[in-house]
């Protein structure tokens, strides 16, 4: 019942704020089991069944092997899947997190792990990723590697990714993930999701709690 109400409210908001009807794309992306009790005003979606942290080993921006579970064990961690040739959502999402992080006390900033996994590993080499992340927050861990590995780990987090495609003119179309997943320092499980519309204020409000493994 709650779920239905939630959907209806969103549809109403969407329709009213739309400026060109019928243009919105209704792609069906995989959606995890979500708890709706947070209500539509909250950016955070707290999962009823948290995700296990993917057993992911990729290459970081230094060209070194990075074992996600090992490197982020017991640390509050945010993971986002995107690509650097993305003009719109990817830099906005990463900048929102980076700006919110800067408002934390230094000790808490150091605890937080922010991991950006490319969905376009062919173009996003370690050095390209490093260059891009330097413009956002050099402390962000950028990971690249084989697409199938990346795709597999995204799938474990309920994020569906298709490999980049190239058209006749050589233009590459890549895909970005739909959500940021927050992992608890207490359980190492992915327990909170943020959609693309989460703002700096949302992250600023929630990060202090996420760092302690609390529910925002």
């Amino acid at each position, binding site marked *: 019942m709650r*779920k239905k109400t*939630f*959907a*209806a409210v*969103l*549809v*109403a*908001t*969407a*329709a*009213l*704020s*739309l*400026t*060109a*009807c*019928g*243009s*919105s*794309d*209704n*792609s069906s*992306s995989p*959606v995890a089991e979500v708890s709706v009790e947070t209500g539509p005003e909250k950016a955070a*979606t707290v999962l009823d069944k948290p995700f296990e942290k993917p057993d992911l080993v990729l290459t970081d921006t230094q060209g070194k092997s990075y074992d996600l579970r090992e490197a982020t064990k017991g640390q509050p961690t945010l993971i986002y899947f995107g690509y*650097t*040739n*993305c*003009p*719109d*959502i990817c*830099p*906005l999402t990463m*900048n*929102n997190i980076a*700006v919110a992080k800067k408002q934390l006390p230094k000790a808490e900033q150091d605890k937080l792990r922010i991991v950006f996994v490319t969905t376009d590993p062919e173009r996003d080499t370690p050095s390209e990723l490093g*260059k*891009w992340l330097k*413009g*956002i927050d050099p402390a962000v861990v950028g990971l690249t590697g084989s697409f199938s590995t990346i795709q597999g780990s995204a799938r474990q987090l309920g994020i*569906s*990714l298709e490999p980049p495609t190239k058209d006749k003119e050589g*233009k590459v*179309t*890549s*895909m*970005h*993930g*739909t*959500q940021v997943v927050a992992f608890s320092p207490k359980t190492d499980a992915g327990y909170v999701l943020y*959609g*693309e*519309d989460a*703002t*700096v204020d949302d992250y600023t409000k929630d990060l202090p709690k996420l760092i302690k493994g609390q529910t925002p």
Partner: protein
Amino acid sequence: MRRPIAPAVVMAGCLALAGCGGSADGTDAAPDLSVRSAYMPQPVTESLAAGYLTVVNKSDSSDDLVSATSDIAEDVSVHETSGQTMKEAGPLKIPAGGRLVLESGGNHLMFEKLKHRPKEGETVSVKLRFTKTDPITVEMPVKSATYQPTSAKSSSTSSNSHH
């Protein structure tokens, strides 16, 4: 337009909006276009930037946004977000008595190979070309990387976050 869900609500949305593409389109009056709410979030690097704006059409004749150019970038394209991907869009319709919104999470301008990385506070000039109307040059202020216009909350960004 023909969406199976909540027809009453969708209709209310259309009414509030002055023209959902289907209104009187047959007259020959020249489109009367104006551009508002233009901005560019400060880009991460000089290789790529996005631009957002709203084109308002006050006439009874529709038009299309066909292309864009800018002194600051080698290439500017009209880009559309479709699900989790983005690609070059065809001409985008500006309905008679309606508007075309380029916004974060939806359609946007993509600037490639910029001469330098624009910083917050600068202004970027972009020339928009239409099917019928003469080109319009827009001075687009560069805002912070996380800037979000207060008025228009995107609808398309929420389409992925629920069933």
